[in-house]
């Protein structure tokens, strides 16, 4: 009886499970799951969610009262029915009623206490988990673009959904169980010791092996659950890919390939879950076997040493009863341990994300950029993507305030990377970039975002109207300003072409608009803002030539009083620029005006010639 087992998926040993089970899923650090790991997660987690630990004393007190009632009720009932008959051979109704009513009162009181305690726990745990989701979400947006590029969307989404859900489910039951059952266990031991401390010690000794065994088991279990959570995020990553790539999948008939891939990860998730369940089964067997050992110990010692211990028959019966009573909560704790492991594994994934070092950390007390057009200065700037070859080497340039600069070069020359560094999507590995004389990495984020605006090539839009998407550029802008932004770019005709006008819903990712149209919306956003440095990263690459030319003119007007850096896709942009920067294989090889560079007859002249050749053959 098994799942559709993939023969390649061997059960993991603790040594192999943490490493090498999977291709990297991104943000899944290769940290080993160790018992210390679990405790560390708990400590770290509680430090991050103080609400969970607050009022612990009250919770324990409630647990204590619930436990006491759980112990008293059976005793009371026992007394009521074991009462010797009255001399006339009938029963003492008053006595029995009194006891039964007392028991009922205890039960009701315990019920209310337990209800109240549970509510408290739920409230706190939910608040803590909500905070954890938000912390993780905020962290995702603090991660660098490089981190984003290396991580599947679905995996990041799993952190704020699936992993947090695992924790939430645990919080509703597990926390309650952790507070109640230990109290019942300790309480039972105390009563047991009251009858005979020797017997209590014997029972304790019987249960003692549980500690090293559970510790060993717990470690494997945590590894198994860690693997399980990784498989879940992998599965979600693949689902996400199938959803986002729906068009390509249909266009190329990739349904069966995609089905195979996702089905495999669905199965792997299930297998990982069943491997974790194996450990849970062991926990249950352990609880039962040890309870039998304890009972055997009680019977053997109790009978053989009865005189030395000075126990009578009634006391011995009570001891046997209490020993059986221990078994329930110990089994329950075993189950709780299991639930805890899956929650801890999820918790750890979230905490690992939250604690991940930020590539592009914001300064603590950031400085402000001056107002108005910003001069840009790069000094010995070098950059490489994570262990890759250098993309930029020793780039030094001064761009005066208010200049209109074009950056040109072949694909892969490093021009886009240069643009990314200017708006601090990444930090240079060598050298420094200064805007308005201030080192960019010391500028407060609010000041940087207000003064530096980049329009990326990929015109991602949110699933709302055109109007709201433009407003995202400058929250608080009124409708007239938004219309004016389109007008200022000469795009009034486009804004009016749909009967819904700017209230047109753009769909997921903006996919109800064409790629070029999305770029127009992104430009309107920029036109609405008032940055001192405007960076256009091939922002019109998918726009038709006529509109592109009109935009070039409009943007030149818009750039009055600011510095504008355009990563030029078409050299028409470059011709009108005050300064052209030419990149080649990561080096800034030429700079100057259009005419200067043509005269120099270097890289730019060659690029320009190729471009003109592609453009000016109208009359053949």
């Amino acid at each position, binding site marked *: 009886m098994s799942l559709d087992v993939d023969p390649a998926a061997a059960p993991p040993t603790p040594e192999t499970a943490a490493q090498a089970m999977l291709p990297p899923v991104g943000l899944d650090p290769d940290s080993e799951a160790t018992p210390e790991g679990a405790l560390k997660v708990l400590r770290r987690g509680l430090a991050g969610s103080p609400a969970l630990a607050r009022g612990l004393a009250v919770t324990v007190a409630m647990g204590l009262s619930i436990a006491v009632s759980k112990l008293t009720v059976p005793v009371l009932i026992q007394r009521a029915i074991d009462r010797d008959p009255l001399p006339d051979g009938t029963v003492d109704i008053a006595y029995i009623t009194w006891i039964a009513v007392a028991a009922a009162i205890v039960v009701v009181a315990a019920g209310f206490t337990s209800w109240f305690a549970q509510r408290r726990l739920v409230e706190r745990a939910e608040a803590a988990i909500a905070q954890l989701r938000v912390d993780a979400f905020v962290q995702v947006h603090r991660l660098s673009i490089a981190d984003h590029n290396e991580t599947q969307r679905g995996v990041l989404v799993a952190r704020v959904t699936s992993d947090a859900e695992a924790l939430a489910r645990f919080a509703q039951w597990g926390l309650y169980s952790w507070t109640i059952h230990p109290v019942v266990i300790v309480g039972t031991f105390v009563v047991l010791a009251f009858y005979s401390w020797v017997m209590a010690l014997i029972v304790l000794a019987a249960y003692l092996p549980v500690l090293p065994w559970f510790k060993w088991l717990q470690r494997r279990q945590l590894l198994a659950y860690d693997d399980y959570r990784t498989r879940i995020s992998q599965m979600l990553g693949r689902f996400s890919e199938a959803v986002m790539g729906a068009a390509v999948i249909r266009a190329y*008939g990739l349904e069966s390939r995609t089905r195979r891939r996702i089905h495999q990860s669905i199965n792997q998730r299930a297998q990982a879950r069943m491997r974790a369940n194996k450990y849970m089964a062991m926990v249950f067997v352990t609880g*039962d076997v040890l309870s039998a050992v304890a009972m055997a110990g009680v019977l053997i010692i109790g*009978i053989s040493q009865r005189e030395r211990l000075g126990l009578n028959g009634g006391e011995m019966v009570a001891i046997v009863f209490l020993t059986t009573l221990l078994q329930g909560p110990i089994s329950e704790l075993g189950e709780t341990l299991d639930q805890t492991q899956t929650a801890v594994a999820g918790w750890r994934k979230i905490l690992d994300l939250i604690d991940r070092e930020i590539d592009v950390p914001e300064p603590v007390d950031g400085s402000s950029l001056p107002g108005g057009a910003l001069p840009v200065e790069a000094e010995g700037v070098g950059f490489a993507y994570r262990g890759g070859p250098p993309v930029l080497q020793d780039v030094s340039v001064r761009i005066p305030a208010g200049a209109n600069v074009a950056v040109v070069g072949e694909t892969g020359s490093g021009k886009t990377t240069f643009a990314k560094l200017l708006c601090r999507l990444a930090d240079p590995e060598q050298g420094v970039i200064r805007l308005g004389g201030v080192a960019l990495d010391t500028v407060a984020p609010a000041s940087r975002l207000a003064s530096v605006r980049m329009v990326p090539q990929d015109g991602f839009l949110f699933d709302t109207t055109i109007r709201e998407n433009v407003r995202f550029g400058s929250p608080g802008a009124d409708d007239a300003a938004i219309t004016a932004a389109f007008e200022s770019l000469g795009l009034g005709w*486009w804004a009016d072409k749909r009967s819904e006008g700017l209230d047109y819903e753009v769909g997921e990712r903006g996919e109800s608009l064409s790629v070029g149209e999305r770029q127009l919306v992104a430009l309107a956003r920029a036109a609405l803002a008032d940055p001192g440095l405007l960076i256009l990263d091939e922002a019109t690459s998918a726009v038709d030539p*006529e509109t592109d030319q009109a935009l070039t003119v409009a943007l030149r007007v818009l750039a009055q009083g600011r510095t504008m850096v355009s990563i030029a896709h078409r050299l028409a942009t470059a011709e009108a620029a005050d300064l052209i920067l030419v990149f080649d294989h990561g080096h800034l090889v030429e700079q100057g005006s259009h005419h200067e560079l043509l005269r120099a007859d270097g890289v730019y002249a060659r690029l320009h010639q*190729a471009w003109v050749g592609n453009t000016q053959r109208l009359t053949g």
Partner: protein
Amino acid sequence: MTRRGARVVAELIRFSPLSFSVSVLGAAVFAAATVASAVVLGRITDQVLLPTFADGEVPDDAVLWSIVAVFAVTAIKAAGVVTRRYLAALTSERAQIQLRTRLLDSYLGLPMAWHQQMPAGQLLAHADNDTEITTEVIHPLPFSFGVAFLAVFSAVALLIVDPVIAVVALAIFPALTVLNRIYSKRIEAPAAEVQAGVGRVSSIAHESFDGALVVKTLGRAAEEETRFVAAVDHLRARRTHVGFIRAGFEAVMDSLPSLGIAVVIIVGAHRIRAGAMTQGDLVQVAALFTVLALPMRVFGFFLEMVPPSVVARQRLSSVFDEPIPSPGQAMTTIGDGALGLEARGLSFRYANTDTDVLTEVGLHLKPGEVVALVGSTGSGKSTLCTLLAGLIPPRSGQVLLGDKAVESLQPEARTEALALVFQESFLFSDTLRANVDLDGSATDEAIRTAMAMARIDDLEAEMVNGLDTVIGERGVTLSGGQRQRVALARALIRRPRLLLLDDATSAVDAGIERQILDRLRAELQATTLIVAQRVSTIELADRVLYLDQGHIIAAGTHQQLLTHPGYRALVSAYEQAIG
């Protein structure tokens, strides 16, 4: 709720009836062993412990046998519980596999138009949380079935002892039904809101992370946080509410057996006085009631899980109920060689708008012809390409591939004959090889040839692991031009007979683009429709179609069309600028 719950449960069991049945058996064994262990302890007390303490004489092998009995009962109990739990988990996992596979089939089979309406995050939530919650009801179920016989056993035994007290004791079942009804009614709406809330959180996260670059460049992280916090907070409130209701139900379910036994004892005392039963009977009644309490409690757990499971399953139904269109059935071969393409009266508008993107578009490409499609931004070029490729159905009109209506073709026939290369290149997070050779059927040589045709052959040498380097999400980052060329190689390796290039080389340097297109023309000899902006590209075409605001308003050679003022203004804009 009861009927819907039963339907969900029946479906889940049907996915894996054997493992479920064995699990129920394990539960029954466990329940029986629990009763047996009480009996064993009772007998040890009566026949070994008490005589020993009373007489001081220990019957030698009695102790030994007692211990053997304790261990035997424990072993059976442990076997029962492990069987039940492990197989219940297996049943649940199998059900999850089935449900996820169905979701997968829907996601892959439903039309593009459906995908355009559904937030990706919601679809992830269905595959994750909704599936998980739907199947959670399985876990307490075998135990509920397994202990049912205990309920029957103790009910019958109670009836034999004393009918009156049995009626009192069994009154707990109607009470349970009423309680469950109240609970189900109160929890259904909030539980549904919790599931919807998880979906919303997932959607916002997915969209927000997807647009991370825009969020960063616009400095919108704080606003995104606000949006996310609102969704999370709503979910927290709803979930807390559900937690409160469950806590109440839980507390009542936990107290009910103990309260019941108090009532039974009082009634029992009166029955003894009335002479209807003896005190020994009362002891037995109390014991039987304890036996009865177990199935009741277990059943309570099960009932508690039903409403969340039902509402989660309903959310899955919103996907399952979408009819998956049956693909066309026409034969897999449509002539051979380059394919002709014809469109008649194509009109199209997106679901959320009342403005046509395309109106009555007609076109005809002869086999082997290379035609450029030119038009301003937003004129409908991309939409036309997706219609021609049969990815979305037109509102009216027809597309003929060769002489077959595109929608009548088997998908394999369609995807084998034509390839559409998108403007935005989607890369799978997989190796370079797998991204080019999507079927996994091509030789390295074929892959290299396709990459050479797309002028991306140097990429292999640049990559650390050559063709086996992982690219795409979580892989090596490629530039826009490189991505486009990988996507192009993916189309070329199939040797399509009709190639639709939707501005597919826009990020490639002009010189390289020209080399690619020259080579395509010489070597592939496919009918080709190129959405183009550059004059150099347009010039390569035999004919040009000029699309303006959803209409094809002119067609002819580039030279002929230059007489059209709109066309001339559109394509010669850069030349004008250069002056």
